Protein backbone atom coordinates (compact mmCIF):
# COMPACT_ATOMS: atom_id res chain seq x y z
CA UNK A 1 0.00 0.00 0.00
CA UNK A 2 1.35 3.41 -0.90
CA UNK A 3 1.07 6.30 1.48
CA UNK A 4 0.33 9.70 0.11
CA UNK A 5 2.56 12.57 1.22
CA UNK A 6 2.21 16.27 0.79
CA UNK A 7 4.58 19.18 0.59
CA UNK A 8 2.86 22.24 1.99
CA UNK A 9 4.58 25.57 2.00
CA UNK A 10 2.08 27.93 3.54
CA UNK A 11 3.96 31.08 2.70
CA UNK A 12 6.57 31.24 -0.01
CA UNK A 13 9.59 33.17 1.17
CA UNK A 14 11.77 35.39 -0.97
CA UNK A 15 9.27 35.95 -3.73
CA UNK A 16 7.25 39.10 -4.14
CA UNK A 17 3.69 38.73 -2.92
CA UNK A 18 1.72 36.17 -1.02
CA UNK A 19 1.61 32.66 -2.36
CA UNK A 20 1.72 29.08 -1.18
CA UNK A 21 2.60 25.69 -2.58
CA UNK A 22 0.76 22.42 -2.28
CA UNK A 23 2.05 19.13 -3.69
CA UNK A 24 0.52 15.69 -3.12
CA UNK A 25 2.63 12.73 -4.09
CA UNK A 26 3.44 9.11 -3.27
CA UNK A 27 5.69 6.35 -4.56
CA UNK A 28 3.56 6.11 -7.69
CA UNK A 29 4.19 9.70 -8.62
CA UNK A 30 3.05 13.26 -8.20
CA UNK A 31 -0.71 13.58 -8.09
CA UNK A 32 -1.35 17.24 -7.51
CA UNK A 33 0.67 20.45 -7.75
CA UNK A 34 -0.86 23.83 -6.94
CA UNK A 35 0.98 27.09 -6.85
CA UNK A 36 -1.59 28.93 -4.79
CA UNK A 37 -1.67 32.66 -5.22
CA UNK A 38 -3.82 34.19 -2.52
CA UNK A 39 -2.60 37.76 -2.69
CA UNK A 40 -5.78 39.81 -2.93
CA UNK A 41 -6.83 40.83 -6.42
CA UNK A 42 -5.93 44.41 -7.22
CA UNK A 43 -8.33 45.23 -10.05
CA UNK A 44 -5.99 47.51 -11.97
CA UNK A 45 -7.74 46.83 -15.23
CA UNK A 46 -11.01 47.77 -13.62
CA UNK A 47 -9.94 51.11 -12.31
CA UNK A 48 -8.07 52.04 -15.47
CA UNK A 49 -11.47 52.34 -17.11
CA UNK A 50 -12.66 55.92 -17.20
CA UNK A 51 -9.17 57.35 -16.69
CA UNK A 52 -7.48 59.63 -19.20
CA UNK A 53 -5.19 57.85 -21.68
CA UNK A 54 -2.29 60.03 -20.51
CA UNK A 55 -2.56 58.56 -17.02
CA UNK A 56 -1.98 54.96 -18.12
CA UNK A 57 1.84 54.94 -17.74
CA UNK A 58 1.79 56.41 -14.23
CA UNK A 59 -1.11 54.35 -12.91
CA UNK A 60 0.17 51.04 -14.22
CA UNK A 61 3.67 51.77 -12.90
CA UNK A 62 2.11 51.34 -9.47
CA UNK A 63 1.40 47.67 -10.13
CA UNK A 64 4.96 46.86 -9.12
CA UNK A 65 7.67 48.51 -7.06
CA UNK A 66 10.52 46.59 -8.63
CA UNK A 67 9.42 46.53 -12.26
CA UNK A 68 7.46 49.79 -12.65
CA UNK A 69 9.37 50.63 -15.83
CA UNK A 70 8.04 47.49 -17.48
CA UNK A 71 4.46 48.49 -16.73
CA UNK A 72 5.12 52.06 -17.75
CA UNK A 73 6.73 50.99 -21.01
CA UNK A 74 4.06 48.49 -22.00
CA UNK A 75 1.35 51.00 -21.14
CA UNK A 76 2.87 53.97 -22.92
CA UNK A 77 3.65 51.94 -26.02
CA UNK A 78 0.16 50.47 -26.11
CA UNK A 79 -1.38 53.94 -25.92
CA UNK A 80 1.02 55.24 -28.56
CA UNK A 81 0.10 52.26 -30.72
CA UNK A 82 -3.57 53.18 -30.32
CA UNK A 83 -2.86 56.77 -31.31
CA UNK A 84 -0.70 55.73 -34.26
CA UNK A 85 2.42 57.45 -32.90
CA UNK A 86 5.88 56.49 -33.98
CA UNK A 87 8.73 57.68 -31.79
CA UNK A 88 12.07 58.87 -33.14
CA UNK A 89 15.08 56.55 -32.78
CA UNK A 90 16.47 59.00 -30.19
CA UNK A 91 13.43 58.71 -27.94
CA UNK A 92 13.37 54.97 -28.46
CA UNK A 93 17.01 54.79 -27.32
CA UNK A 94 16.25 56.70 -24.12
CA UNK A 95 13.36 54.39 -23.29
CA UNK A 96 15.67 51.46 -23.86
CA UNK A 97 18.26 53.01 -21.56
CA UNK A 98 15.63 53.31 -18.85
CA UNK A 99 14.67 49.66 -19.31
CA UNK A 100 18.35 48.70 -18.89
CA UNK A 101 18.18 50.32 -15.46
CA UNK A 102 15.20 48.26 -14.46
CA UNK A 103 16.71 44.98 -15.61
CA UNK A 104 19.81 45.75 -13.56
CA UNK A 105 17.83 46.68 -10.43
CA UNK A 106 15.52 43.70 -10.60
CA UNK A 107 17.97 41.03 -11.70
CA UNK A 108 20.72 41.96 -9.23
CA UNK A 109 18.31 41.97 -6.31
CA UNK A 110 17.01 38.59 -7.38
CA UNK A 111 20.43 37.08 -8.02
CA UNK A 112 22.08 38.20 -4.79
CA UNK A 113 19.36 38.51 -2.19
CA UNK A 114 16.69 36.07 -3.24
CA UNK A 115 18.08 33.27 -5.38
CA UNK A 116 21.79 32.76 -4.63
CA UNK A 117 21.07 31.69 -1.01
CA UNK A 118 19.35 28.60 -2.47
CA UNK A 119 22.53 27.49 -4.20
CA UNK A 120 24.80 28.16 -1.24
CA UNK A 121 22.55 26.74 1.46
CA UNK A 122 21.50 29.89 3.29
CA UNK A 123 18.00 30.68 4.51
CA UNK A 124 18.22 34.30 3.35
CA UNK A 125 20.32 36.87 1.56
CA UNK A 126 21.12 38.48 4.89
CA UNK A 127 22.49 35.20 6.24
CA UNK A 128 24.51 34.74 3.06
CA UNK A 129 25.93 38.26 3.39
CA UNK A 130 27.51 37.33 6.71
CA UNK A 131 29.77 34.79 4.97
CA UNK A 132 29.99 36.51 1.60
CA UNK A 133 29.96 40.24 2.36
CA UNK A 134 32.01 41.30 -0.65
CA UNK A 135 29.77 39.38 -3.04
CA UNK A 136 26.58 40.92 -1.67
CA UNK A 137 28.19 44.35 -1.52
CA UNK A 138 29.04 44.06 -5.22
CA UNK A 139 25.44 43.13 -5.94
CA UNK A 140 24.16 46.16 -4.10
CA UNK A 141 26.64 48.38 -5.93
CA UNK A 142 25.30 47.16 -9.25
CA UNK A 143 21.74 47.65 -8.12
CA UNK A 144 22.63 51.19 -7.13
CA UNK A 145 23.96 51.83 -10.63
CA UNK A 146 20.66 50.53 -12.03
CA UNK A 147 18.85 52.89 -9.68
CA UNK A 148 20.91 55.78 -11.06
CA UNK A 149 19.72 55.06 -14.59
CA UNK A 150 16.08 54.92 -13.57
CA UNK A 151 16.45 58.04 -11.44
CA UNK A 152 17.96 60.04 -14.30
CA UNK A 153 15.52 58.90 -16.96
CA UNK A 154 12.50 58.39 -14.76
CA UNK A 155 12.82 61.26 -12.33
CA UNK A 156 13.12 58.96 -9.35
CA UNK A 157 14.21 55.40 -8.83
CA UNK A 158 10.96 53.91 -7.54
CA UNK A 159 7.77 54.49 -9.50
CA UNK A 160 9.34 56.82 -12.06
CA UNK A 161 7.28 59.77 -13.26
CA UNK A 162 9.13 61.18 -16.26
CA UNK A 163 7.65 58.99 -18.99
CA UNK A 164 4.72 60.44 -20.88
CA UNK A 165 2.68 59.46 -23.89
CA UNK A 166 4.74 60.65 -26.86
CA UNK A 167 8.11 60.67 -25.11
CA UNK A 168 9.44 62.08 -21.84
CA UNK A 169 8.66 65.17 -19.79
CA UNK A 170 12.33 66.02 -19.42
CA UNK A 171 15.40 64.87 -21.33
CA UNK A 172 18.70 64.10 -19.64
CA UNK A 173 21.57 66.49 -20.32
CA UNK A 174 24.89 65.41 -21.80
CA UNK A 175 26.79 66.06 -18.53
CA UNK A 176 24.25 63.98 -16.62
CA UNK A 177 24.67 61.12 -19.06
CA UNK A 178 28.45 61.45 -18.92
CA UNK A 179 28.44 61.17 -15.15
CA UNK A 180 26.14 58.16 -15.35
CA UNK A 181 28.40 56.51 -17.92
CA UNK A 182 31.38 56.56 -15.55
CA UNK A 183 29.35 54.81 -12.86
CA UNK A 184 28.06 52.25 -15.34
CA UNK A 185 31.53 51.37 -16.54
CA UNK A 186 32.65 50.64 -12.99
CA UNK A 187 29.58 48.54 -12.34
CA UNK A 188 30.01 46.66 -15.63
CA UNK A 189 33.24 45.20 -14.29
CA UNK A 190 31.32 43.90 -11.29
CA UNK A 191 28.74 42.43 -13.68
CA UNK A 192 31.47 40.45 -15.44
CA UNK A 193 32.53 39.05 -12.08
CA UNK A 194 28.90 38.23 -11.33
CA UNK A 195 28.66 36.03 -14.41
CA UNK A 196 31.77 34.16 -13.35
CA UNK A 197 30.46 33.77 -9.82
CA UNK A 198 26.96 32.68 -10.89
CA UNK A 199 28.41 30.12 -13.28
CA UNK A 200 30.47 28.66 -10.43
CA UNK A 201 27.41 27.98 -8.24
CA UNK A 202 26.34 24.35 -7.77
CA UNK A 203 23.53 24.28 -10.31
CA UNK A 204 21.23 21.25 -10.07
CA UNK A 205 20.70 19.23 -13.23
CA UNK A 206 17.24 19.16 -14.65
CA UNK A 207 16.24 18.28 -18.16
CA UNK A 208 12.78 17.63 -19.47
CA UNK A 209 12.04 14.62 -21.65
CA UNK A 210 11.81 15.34 -25.40
CA UNK A 211 8.01 15.12 -25.33
CA UNK A 212 7.87 17.79 -22.62
CA UNK A 213 10.30 20.40 -23.86
CA UNK A 214 9.59 23.98 -22.88
CA UNK A 215 8.04 26.33 -25.35
CA UNK A 216 10.11 29.47 -24.77
CA UNK A 217 8.30 32.68 -25.72
CA UNK A 218 9.86 36.13 -26.03
CA UNK A 219 9.94 39.22 -28.15
CA UNK A 220 12.38 39.23 -31.00
CA UNK A 221 13.57 42.05 -33.20
CA UNK A 222 16.18 41.89 -35.94
CA UNK A 223 17.86 45.08 -34.69
CA UNK A 224 18.30 44.49 -30.98
CA UNK A 225 18.09 42.21 -27.96
CA UNK A 226 14.42 42.56 -27.00
CA UNK A 227 13.18 45.12 -24.51
CA UNK A 228 10.54 47.45 -25.90
CA UNK A 229 9.63 46.08 -29.29
CA UNK A 230 9.61 43.10 -31.59
CA UNK A 231 7.44 40.26 -32.73
CA UNK A 232 6.38 37.50 -30.35
CA UNK A 233 8.25 34.34 -31.23
CA UNK A 234 8.68 30.94 -29.69
CA UNK A 235 10.90 27.89 -29.93
CA UNK A 236 7.91 25.99 -31.30
CA UNK A 237 7.38 28.12 -34.38
CA UNK A 238 5.24 30.98 -33.13
CA UNK A 239 6.01 34.23 -34.95
CA UNK A 240 3.28 36.84 -34.61
CA UNK A 241 2.77 40.55 -34.36
CA UNK A 242 1.99 41.74 -30.83
CA UNK A 243 -1.44 42.83 -32.09
CA UNK A 244 -2.27 39.13 -32.62
CA UNK A 245 -1.52 38.22 -29.00
CA UNK A 246 -5.16 37.57 -28.09
CA UNK A 247 -5.51 35.04 -30.91
CA UNK A 248 -2.68 32.91 -29.55
CA UNK A 249 -2.78 33.30 -25.77
CA UNK A 250 -5.67 33.13 -23.38
CA UNK A 251 -6.20 33.23 -19.64
CA UNK A 252 -8.31 30.99 -17.45
CA UNK A 253 -9.28 31.18 -13.84
CA UNK A 254 -8.41 28.28 -11.52
CA UNK A 255 -10.12 27.96 -8.19
CA UNK A 256 -7.02 28.03 -6.00
CA UNK A 257 -5.33 31.09 -7.47
CA UNK A 258 -6.13 34.77 -7.60
CA UNK A 259 -3.82 35.03 -10.60
CA UNK A 260 -5.16 33.93 -13.95
CA UNK A 261 -3.36 31.09 -15.70
CA UNK A 262 -2.24 31.80 -19.24
CA UNK A 263 -1.96 29.25 -22.00
CA UNK A 264 -0.89 29.13 -25.60
CA UNK A 265 -4.11 28.46 -27.44
CA UNK A 266 -4.15 24.80 -28.42
CA UNK A 267 -0.80 24.05 -26.79
CA UNK A 268 -0.76 24.80 -23.08
CA UNK A 269 2.05 26.02 -20.86
CA UNK A 270 4.88 28.22 -22.08
CA UNK A 271 7.99 29.75 -20.56
CA UNK A 272 8.80 33.47 -20.42
CA UNK A 273 11.66 35.46 -18.95
CA UNK A 274 15.42 35.82 -19.22
CA UNK A 275 15.97 32.25 -20.32
CA UNK A 276 13.40 32.57 -23.11
CA UNK A 277 14.89 35.88 -24.24
CA UNK A 278 18.39 34.44 -24.17
CA UNK A 279 17.52 31.25 -26.04
CA UNK A 280 15.60 33.10 -28.73
CA UNK A 281 17.91 36.08 -29.10
CA UNK A 282 21.42 34.94 -28.27
CA UNK A 283 22.77 36.29 -31.56
CA UNK A 284 21.70 39.82 -30.63
CA UNK A 285 23.68 39.97 -27.39
CA UNK A 286 26.75 42.20 -27.39
CA UNK A 287 30.16 40.73 -28.21
CA UNK A 288 31.26 41.27 -24.59
CA UNK A 289 28.36 39.20 -23.24
CA UNK A 290 28.99 36.40 -25.72
CA UNK A 291 32.66 36.47 -24.86
CA UNK A 292 32.03 36.15 -21.12
CA UNK A 293 29.38 33.46 -21.68
CA UNK A 294 31.96 31.56 -23.71
CA UNK A 295 34.64 32.02 -21.07
CA UNK A 296 32.48 30.42 -18.39
CA UNK A 297 31.35 27.69 -20.79
CA UNK A 298 27.71 28.70 -20.86
CA UNK A 299 25.91 27.49 -24.01
CA UNK A 300 23.91 29.69 -26.38
CA UNK A 301 20.81 27.64 -25.62
CA UNK A 302 19.99 26.40 -22.15
CA UNK A 303 16.83 24.72 -20.90
CA UNK A 304 17.77 23.97 -17.31
CA UNK A 305 15.70 26.46 -15.28
CA UNK A 306 18.16 26.22 -12.37
CA UNK A 307 20.70 27.87 -14.68
CA UNK A 308 18.48 30.92 -15.01
CA UNK A 309 20.62 32.64 -12.39
CA UNK A 310 23.50 32.57 -14.89
CA UNK A 311 21.26 33.88 -17.65
CA UNK A 312 20.14 36.73 -15.39
CA UNK A 313 23.74 37.62 -14.69
CA UNK A 314 24.45 37.64 -18.43
CA UNK A 315 21.46 39.95 -18.93
CA UNK A 316 22.76 42.25 -16.19
CA UNK A 317 26.06 42.45 -18.03
CA UNK A 318 24.21 43.06 -21.27
CA UNK A 319 22.14 45.83 -19.70
CA UNK A 320 25.27 47.64 -18.50
CA UNK A 321 26.96 47.17 -21.86
CA UNK A 322 23.90 48.34 -23.75
CA UNK A 323 23.40 51.34 -21.45
CA UNK A 324 26.99 52.46 -22.08
CA UNK A 325 26.52 51.96 -25.83
CA UNK A 326 23.33 54.04 -25.82
CA UNK A 327 25.04 56.86 -23.94
CA UNK A 328 28.04 56.76 -26.27
CA UNK A 329 25.76 57.09 -29.29
CA UNK A 330 23.38 59.57 -27.71
CA UNK A 331 21.93 62.32 -29.84
CA UNK A 332 19.38 64.52 -28.12
CA UNK A 333 15.87 64.18 -29.55
CA UNK A 334 14.53 67.25 -31.30
CA UNK A 335 11.88 67.55 -28.61
CA UNK A 336 11.21 65.65 -25.39
CA UNK A 337 7.88 64.42 -26.69
CA UNK A 338 5.45 64.37 -29.59
CA UNK A 339 2.11 66.08 -29.11
CA UNK A 340 -0.80 63.70 -28.89
CA UNK A 341 -4.55 63.91 -29.31
CA UNK A 342 -7.09 61.22 -28.49
CA UNK A 343 -9.12 59.33 -31.03
CA UNK A 344 -11.37 56.31 -30.71
CA UNK A 345 -8.96 53.42 -31.01
CA UNK A 346 -7.48 50.29 -29.56
CA UNK A 347 -3.78 49.71 -29.10
CA UNK A 348 -1.56 47.08 -27.61
CA UNK A 349 2.10 46.53 -26.80
CA UNK A 350 4.32 43.93 -25.25
CA UNK A 351 7.66 44.61 -23.64
CA UNK A 352 10.18 42.43 -21.85
CA UNK A 353 9.81 42.93 -18.11
CA UNK A 354 12.68 41.39 -16.14
CA UNK A 355 10.44 38.37 -15.54
CA UNK A 356 9.25 38.12 -19.14
CA UNK A 357 6.74 39.27 -21.71
CA UNK A 358 4.25 41.82 -20.38
CA UNK A 359 1.23 42.50 -22.58
CA UNK A 360 -1.06 45.56 -22.36
CA UNK A 361 -4.10 46.46 -24.45
CA UNK A 362 -6.23 49.59 -24.12
CA UNK A 363 -9.36 50.89 -25.75
CA UNK A 364 -9.64 54.68 -25.89
CA UNK A 365 -12.78 56.67 -26.71
CA UNK A 366 -13.06 59.96 -28.58
CA UNK A 367 -12.63 62.02 -25.40
CA UNK A 368 -9.46 60.19 -24.43
CA UNK A 369 -10.98 58.04 -21.71
CA UNK A 370 -9.80 54.47 -21.42
CA UNK A 371 -12.83 52.25 -21.94
CA UNK A 372 -11.12 48.86 -21.90
CA UNK A 373 -7.87 47.57 -20.42
CA UNK A 374 -6.12 44.24 -20.42
CA UNK A 375 -2.82 43.58 -18.67
CA UNK A 376 -1.16 40.17 -18.68
CA UNK A 377 1.77 39.94 -16.27
CA UNK A 378 4.68 37.54 -16.80
CA UNK A 379 4.12 35.55 -13.62
CA UNK A 380 0.58 34.57 -14.55
CA UNK A 381 1.94 33.39 -17.89
CA UNK A 382 4.67 31.31 -16.26
CA UNK A 383 2.44 29.84 -13.58
CA UNK A 384 1.55 26.66 -15.45
CA UNK A 385 5.17 26.05 -16.37
CA UNK A 386 6.22 26.44 -12.75
CA UNK A 387 3.65 23.83 -11.72
CA UNK A 388 4.73 21.53 -14.57
CA UNK A 389 8.36 21.86 -13.49
CA UNK A 390 7.52 20.81 -9.97
CA UNK A 391 5.46 17.89 -11.23
CA UNK A 392 8.24 16.70 -13.52
CA UNK A 393 11.24 17.28 -11.27
CA UNK A 394 9.81 15.94 -8.05
CA UNK A 395 10.34 12.23 -8.84
CA UNK A 396 14.10 12.73 -8.88
CA UNK A 397 13.98 14.45 -5.48
CA UNK A 398 11.55 12.17 -3.65
CA UNK A 399 14.38 10.53 -1.73
CA UNK A 400 15.25 13.83 -0.04
CA UNK A 401 14.31 14.58 3.54
CA UNK A 402 11.17 16.67 3.79
CA UNK A 403 12.94 19.95 4.58
CA UNK A 404 15.36 19.46 1.69
CA UNK A 405 12.52 18.54 -0.63
CA UNK A 406 10.68 21.70 0.33
CA UNK A 407 13.82 23.79 -0.19
CA UNK A 408 14.31 22.31 -3.64
CA UNK A 409 10.69 23.06 -4.55
CA UNK A 410 11.06 26.65 -3.39
CA UNK A 411 14.26 26.97 -5.37
CA UNK A 412 12.46 25.70 -8.46
CA UNK A 413 9.85 28.43 -7.97
CA UNK A 414 12.47 31.11 -7.41
CA UNK A 415 14.10 30.08 -10.71
CA UNK A 416 11.28 32.10 -12.21
CA UNK A 417 11.54 35.11 -9.87
CA UNK A 418 7.75 35.17 -9.68
CA UNK A 419 6.16 38.46 -8.80
CA UNK A 420 2.92 37.34 -7.29
CA UNK A 421 1.70 40.85 -6.52
CA UNK A 422 2.02 41.71 -10.19
CA UNK A 423 0.05 38.73 -11.30
CA UNK A 424 -2.99 39.27 -9.10
CA UNK A 425 -4.25 42.54 -10.42
CA UNK A 426 -7.26 40.98 -12.04
CA UNK A 427 -9.81 38.43 -11.07
CA UNK A 428 -12.37 37.40 -13.61
CA UNK A 429 -15.80 37.41 -12.01
CA UNK A 430 -18.56 35.23 -13.38
CA UNK A 431 -21.87 36.63 -12.22
CA UNK A 432 -24.81 34.30 -12.39
CA UNK A 433 -27.84 36.39 -11.54
CA UNK A 434 -30.78 34.59 -10.01
CA UNK A 435 -33.82 35.30 -12.15
CA UNK A 436 -37.15 36.01 -10.49
CA UNK A 437 -39.12 32.82 -10.08
CA UNK A 438 -36.16 30.54 -10.59
Amino acid at each position, binding site marked *: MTRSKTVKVDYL*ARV*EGEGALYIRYDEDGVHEVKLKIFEPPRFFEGFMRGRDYREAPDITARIC*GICPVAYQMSAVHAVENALGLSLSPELHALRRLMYCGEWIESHT*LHIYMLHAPDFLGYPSGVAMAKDHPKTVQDG*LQMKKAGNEIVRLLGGREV*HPINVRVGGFYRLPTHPELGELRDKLLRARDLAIETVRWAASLPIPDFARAPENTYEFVALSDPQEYPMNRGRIVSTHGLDIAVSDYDDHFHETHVEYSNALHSERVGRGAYFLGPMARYNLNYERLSPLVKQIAGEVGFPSFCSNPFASIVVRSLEVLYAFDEAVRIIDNYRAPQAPYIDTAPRPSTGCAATEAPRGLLFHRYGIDASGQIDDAKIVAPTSQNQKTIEDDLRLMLPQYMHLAEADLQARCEQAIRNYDPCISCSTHFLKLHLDPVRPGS
Partner: protein
Amino acid sequence: MGNRFRGDDSVGPYVVHRLRSQLTPSIPCIENNGDMSNLIEDWRDRHVCLVDAVQTAAYPPGEVVRLNGLKQDIPASLCRTSSHGLNIGEALELARALEAMPAHLEIYAICGRDFSFSAGLSAQVKAAAQQVMREILEKIQLQTGGL
Protein backbone atom coordinates in the same frame (compact mmCIF):
# COMPACT_ATOMS: atom_id res chain seq x y z
CA MET B 1 11.11 56.95 4.76
CA GLY B 2 7.69 56.62 3.21
CA ASN B 3 5.43 57.11 0.26
CA ARG B 4 4.36 60.69 -0.43
CA PHE B 5 1.04 59.56 -1.82
CA ARG B 6 -0.18 57.25 0.90
CA GLY B 7 -1.69 59.34 3.64
CA ASP B 8 0.21 59.13 6.92
CA ASP B 9 2.95 57.08 5.28
CA SER B 10 4.13 60.39 3.82
CA VAL B 11 5.23 61.71 7.22
CA GLY B 12 8.89 60.81 6.57
CA PRO B 13 9.07 62.75 3.27
CA TYR B 14 7.06 65.56 4.91
CA VAL B 15 9.64 65.95 7.67
CA VAL B 16 12.63 65.66 5.33
CA HIS B 17 11.23 68.24 2.95
CA ARG B 18 10.75 70.80 5.73
CA LEU B 19 14.04 70.10 7.48
CA ARG B 20 15.96 70.46 4.24
CA SER B 21 15.09 74.13 4.02
CA GLN B 22 16.30 74.71 7.58
CA LEU B 23 19.61 72.89 7.39
CA THR B 24 22.89 73.48 5.59
CA PRO B 25 23.73 71.13 2.69
CA SER B 26 26.41 69.58 4.90
CA ILE B 27 23.59 67.80 6.70
CA PRO B 28 21.96 65.59 4.05
CA CYS B 29 18.19 65.13 4.11
CA ILE B 30 17.60 61.90 2.21
CA GLU B 31 14.20 60.63 1.17
CA ASN B 32 13.83 56.88 0.82
CA ASN B 33 10.77 55.40 -0.87
CA GLY B 34 11.34 52.01 0.67
CA ASP B 35 14.47 50.76 -1.02
CA MET B 36 16.43 49.39 1.92
CA SER B 37 19.50 48.66 -0.16
CA ASN B 38 19.83 52.41 -0.66
CA LEU B 39 19.33 52.92 3.04
CA ILE B 40 22.36 50.77 3.76
CA GLU B 41 24.42 52.83 1.38
CA ASP B 42 23.14 56.13 2.74
CA TRP B 43 23.52 55.55 6.47
CA ARG B 44 26.99 53.97 6.55
CA ASP B 45 29.11 55.56 9.35
CA ARG B 46 26.69 58.47 9.72
CA HIS B 47 24.70 59.92 12.59
CA VAL B 48 21.21 59.15 11.39
CA CYS B 49 17.73 60.26 12.40
CA LEU B 50 15.27 58.00 10.62
CA VAL B 51 11.65 59.09 10.46
CA ASP B 52 9.02 56.62 9.35
CA ALA B 53 5.34 55.97 9.81
CA VAL B 54 4.13 52.82 11.50
CA GLN B 55 0.78 51.13 11.49
CA THR B 56 -0.08 49.74 14.90
CA ALA B 57 -3.02 49.25 17.19
CA ALA B 58 -0.74 49.48 20.22
CA TYR B 59 -0.57 53.28 20.24
CA PRO B 60 -2.94 56.05 19.19
CA PRO B 61 -2.37 57.95 15.92
CA GLY B 62 0.25 60.65 16.37
CA GLU B 63 2.16 58.80 19.08
CA VAL B 64 5.92 58.93 18.49
CA VAL B 65 7.88 55.80 19.36
CA ARG B 66 11.57 56.64 19.77
CA LEU B 67 14.09 53.83 19.37
CA ASN B 68 17.83 53.61 19.46
CA GLY B 69 18.29 51.52 16.32
CA LEU B 70 21.69 50.22 17.40
CA LYS B 71 20.76 49.20 20.91
CA GLN B 72 17.09 48.32 20.93
CA ASP B 73 15.32 45.54 19.10
CA ILE B 74 13.24 46.69 16.18
CA PRO B 75 9.76 45.20 16.56
CA ALA B 76 8.98 42.48 14.05
CA SER B 77 7.28 43.62 10.90
CA LEU B 78 4.90 41.85 8.59
CA CYS B 79 7.08 43.05 5.75
CA ARG B 80 9.54 40.27 4.93
CA THR B 81 12.35 40.04 2.44
CA SER B 82 10.96 40.06 -1.05
CA SER B 83 11.86 41.42 -4.42
CA HIS B 84 10.60 44.74 -3.09
CA GLY B 85 13.21 44.96 -0.40
CA LEU B 86 13.96 44.33 3.23
CA ASN B 87 12.40 45.57 6.43
CA ILE B 88 14.42 47.77 8.77
CA GLY B 89 15.43 44.91 11.05
CA GLU B 90 16.78 42.98 8.07
CA ALA B 91 18.44 46.09 6.69
CA LEU B 92 20.29 46.51 9.98
CA GLU B 93 21.30 42.86 9.98
CA LEU B 94 22.54 43.15 6.42
CA ALA B 95 24.38 46.38 7.23
CA ARG B 96 26.08 44.64 10.14
CA ALA B 97 27.21 41.83 7.82
CA LEU B 98 28.51 44.33 5.29
CA GLU B 99 30.12 46.58 7.90
CA ALA B 100 27.87 49.37 6.73
CA MET B 101 26.27 50.34 10.01
CA PRO B 102 25.39 53.89 10.92
CA ALA B 103 27.42 55.48 13.71
CA HIS B 104 24.20 56.37 15.54
CA LEU B 105 20.65 55.57 14.59
CA GLU B 106 17.73 57.35 16.19
CA ILE B 107 14.42 56.05 14.90
CA TYR B 108 11.28 58.16 15.15
CA ALA B 109 8.35 55.87 14.41
CA ILE B 110 5.20 57.95 14.08
CA CYS B 111 1.97 56.02 14.49
CA GLY B 112 -0.34 56.68 11.56
CA ARG B 113 -4.08 56.49 11.17
CA ASP B 114 -4.91 56.60 7.47
CA PHE B 115 -2.64 55.03 4.86
CA SER B 116 -4.96 55.27 1.89
CA PHE B 117 -3.87 56.75 -1.43
CA SER B 118 -3.91 60.54 -1.70
CA ALA B 119 -5.26 60.93 1.81
CA GLY B 120 -2.65 63.43 3.03
CA LEU B 121 -1.40 63.60 6.60
CA SER B 122 -3.93 63.25 9.39
CA ALA B 123 -3.98 66.08 11.94
CA GLN B 124 -2.47 63.97 14.73
CA VAL B 125 0.40 62.80 12.54
CA LYS B 126 1.07 66.33 11.29
CA ALA B 127 1.35 67.53 14.90
CA ALA B 128 3.68 64.65 15.70
CA ALA B 129 5.80 65.56 12.67
CA GLN B 130 6.24 69.10 14.03
CA GLN B 131 7.37 67.68 17.36
CA VAL B 132 9.84 65.31 15.70
CA MET B 133 11.25 68.14 13.59
CA ARG B 134 11.84 70.23 16.72
CA GLU B 135 13.62 67.31 18.40
CA ILE B 136 15.83 66.64 15.40
CA LEU B 137 16.77 70.30 15.07
CA GLU B 138 17.64 70.42 18.79
CA LYS B 139 19.75 67.29 18.41
CA ILE B 140 21.63 68.79 15.49
CA GLN B 141 22.08 72.06 17.38
CA LEU B 142 23.58 70.17 20.30
CA GLN B 143 25.92 68.11 18.15
CA THR B 144 27.08 70.74 15.69
CA GLY B 145 26.64 73.98 17.53
CA GLY B 146 24.17 75.08 14.91
CA LEU B 147 26.15 74.48 11.71
